[in-house]
């Protein structure tokens, strides 16, 4: 059992993830059948709901924007050798930062100054919330997985306290802050297109989608083109070797966690500044955990994360559409599928590797046996 499994690069990068994804979809299809629905019909409705109309596509992109942020957050921490489960809490804090900036200065600043300030505040609050577990990991050795889970619960307690006791306007019943000034609202894509003379239906898709695109490019450049990114990956990949080469592991742990927290915090821009226009209690709604699935399927690479975010955006939008169309179908099917994807593409990712490698070797062996180099079959 201890021999490493040898797979050709294309099989490792494309075939194996595709097989794992297919298994997850298959099991989800069985669950759909178990609740008495037709998987083919559900799939057709899902694709139609997600891509069949301009509104559908806009919603898909809006969900994907959030998942790009949380997915990148998990991936950056992962490259630093850390598993950040705290995306949920960091995103919550990001929303809080954006909201505090908007509530304090929204009436006094024009949009061109307000919106960048909110982006900065969201990133800084997320960064700070991730920096504490990062520092505890770097200097005290407290495992970041456990501390970030604890920080998620602390974040939701803090949010509940602030909303109920500080930010809620007196005399209102719903637990939310007052609405932001118009300058603190991220313009919707339909508004911008309207300004350009293009007619586009209303949707929550807003300019945050460009922030997400910038984040994708930025992470790609940082991790693979900058010396700082190299140091981060070196510590994540081989901490002792990196240390020997003169890279300080503590600084890189802090960098990975802070960058990760800042990315997760940007969820607040898409949701709070872009859609709700006020601070809500539960606006993250599990997006931090979806980021884990996104990063796993995207294999922690920006291109993969972009594709995985679109997949999950389509699932969320399509799932909502199906819940409208089919009575008794719950949108929670999407959450089930998400969990199954984490199970098969994450925890059980290597289960199919050995049979696959045997199959590929058998196929290669058969081909080689027909040719002149029969003895050149791959070693077994």
């Amino acid at each position, binding site marked *: 059992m201890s021999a490493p499994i040898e797979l050709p690069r294309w099989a490792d990068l494309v075939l194996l993830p595709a097989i794992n994804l297919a298994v997850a979809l298959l099991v989800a299809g069985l669950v759909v059948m178990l609740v008495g629905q037709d998987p083919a019909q559900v799939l057709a409705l899902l694709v139609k709901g997600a891509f069949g109309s301009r509104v559908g596509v806009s919603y898909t992109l809006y969900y994907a924007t959030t998942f790009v942020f949380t997915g990148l957050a998990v991936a950056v921490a992962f490259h630093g050798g850390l598993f950040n489960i705290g995306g949920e809490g960091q995103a919550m804090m990001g929303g809080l930062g954006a909201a505090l900036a908007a509530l304090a200065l929204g009436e006094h600043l024009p949009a061109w100054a307000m919106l960048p300030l909110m982006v900065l505040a969201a990133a800084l609050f997320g960064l700070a919330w991730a920096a504490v577990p990062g520092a505890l990991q770097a200097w005290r050795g407290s495992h970041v997985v456990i501390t970030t889970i604890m920080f998620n619960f602390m974040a939701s*307690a803090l949010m*509940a*306290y602030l909303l109920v006791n500080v930010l809620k306007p007196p005399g209102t019943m719903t637990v939310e802050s007052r609405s932001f000034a118009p300058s603190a609202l991220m313009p919707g894509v339909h508004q911008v297109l309207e300004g350009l003379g293009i007619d586009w239906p209303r949707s929550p898709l807003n300019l945050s989608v460009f922030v997400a695109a910038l984040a994708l490019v930025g992470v790609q450049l940082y991790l693979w083109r900058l010396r700082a990114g190299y140091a981060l990956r070196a510590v994540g990949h081989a901490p002792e070797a990196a240390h020997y080469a003169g890279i300080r592991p503590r600084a890189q742990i802090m960098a990975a966690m802070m960058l990760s927290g800042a990315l997760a915090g940007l969820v607040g821009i898409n949701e709070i500044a872009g859609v709700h226009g006020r601070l809500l209690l539960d606006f993250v709604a599990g997006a931090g955990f979806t980021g884990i699935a996104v990063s796993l399927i995207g294999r922690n690479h920006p291109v993969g994360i972009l594709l995985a975010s679109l997949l999950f955006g389509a699932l969320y939008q399509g799932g909502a559409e199906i819940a409208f169309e089919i009575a008794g179908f*719950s949108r929670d099917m999407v959450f089930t599928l*998400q969990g199954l994807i*984490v199970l098969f593409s994450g925890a059980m990712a290597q*289960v199919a590797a050995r049979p696959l490698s045997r199959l590929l070797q058998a196929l290669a062996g058969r081909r080689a046996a027909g040719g002149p180099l029969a003895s050149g079959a791959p070693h077994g």
Partner: protein
Amino acid sequence: MDEVLFGTLLASTLRVSTPLILCALAGVLSERSGVIDLGLEGKMLLAAFAAGSAGALGGSLVLALGCALAVGVALSMVHGYACVSHRGDQVVLGMAITMTAAGLTVVLGIAWFHQGGQTPPLPDAVRLSPWFGAIGAAVEGVPLVGKTLAIGLFGHNLVVYGALALVGGVWWLLYRTRFGLRLRACGENPAMVDAAGVGVTRLRYSALGLNGLLCGLAGAYLVLAQNPSFVPHMTAGRGYMALAAMIFGKWNPVGALWACLLFGFLDAASIRLQGVVIPGLGAVPVQAIQALPYVLTVVLLAGFIGRAYAPAALGVPYVKER
């Protein structure tokens, strides 16, 4: 008057702590064998759903309990298959179980019972009945502490007493039996266990089996004793709080018991302390008390109050050398 208050506080502490204790023990067993369990929440949730739906459809307490235990063990076997047999990432697996359980219970609940994910309320025959009520009535006459004891300690159901007894049971298993010694060694230095001719895989699977039973029992308790039916997301982070308690108890069953009782007490007290003004401090925000278990665990993990050492081989899949 105060006697009644202390009694009800004690009673609700015990009631709230019971699922925490069971889950924390489950965590102690699996983590002492070297397998991280972040899936406590999901195992408990799916087991609670199994108890709720089996109880509603079959109308039998034994069936409901059996289904919950079976689901708990089945999930633990998935855990073992992925992480012990195939060396998958243990943290990721825990997240997977919890995420899948959160979605699946709602999907199945809505499809089967058409009540927005809830199961129908269970009849009394399927619910756990109070025990030792007679002793409580007898003790009530004792001056000073009688009423507090009667309300606080007696008249709970079997699982509450069972959970307390299981703390002793797990302690005995871990520290006084050969199996327990091997299990702990497995979490510290599996290569040594292997060299001694004992199967690491088998030991870890056994630990996970027991872990599944305890999670199943915790889930069943939520539906058969605490709540009249299954409600979506009813575990509400208890699995993670149990994880925190296990760490706070330094991976020791008795330590975990005290941590669970402390966290349970904070939970029970937070409802009562709402709006209470403490002189010099002002009103205590209920959210601060609710967040306290997590804050305490982080502070402990950071080594500011004592030090918690995880088992040395925790989270490291064992690769047998040939």
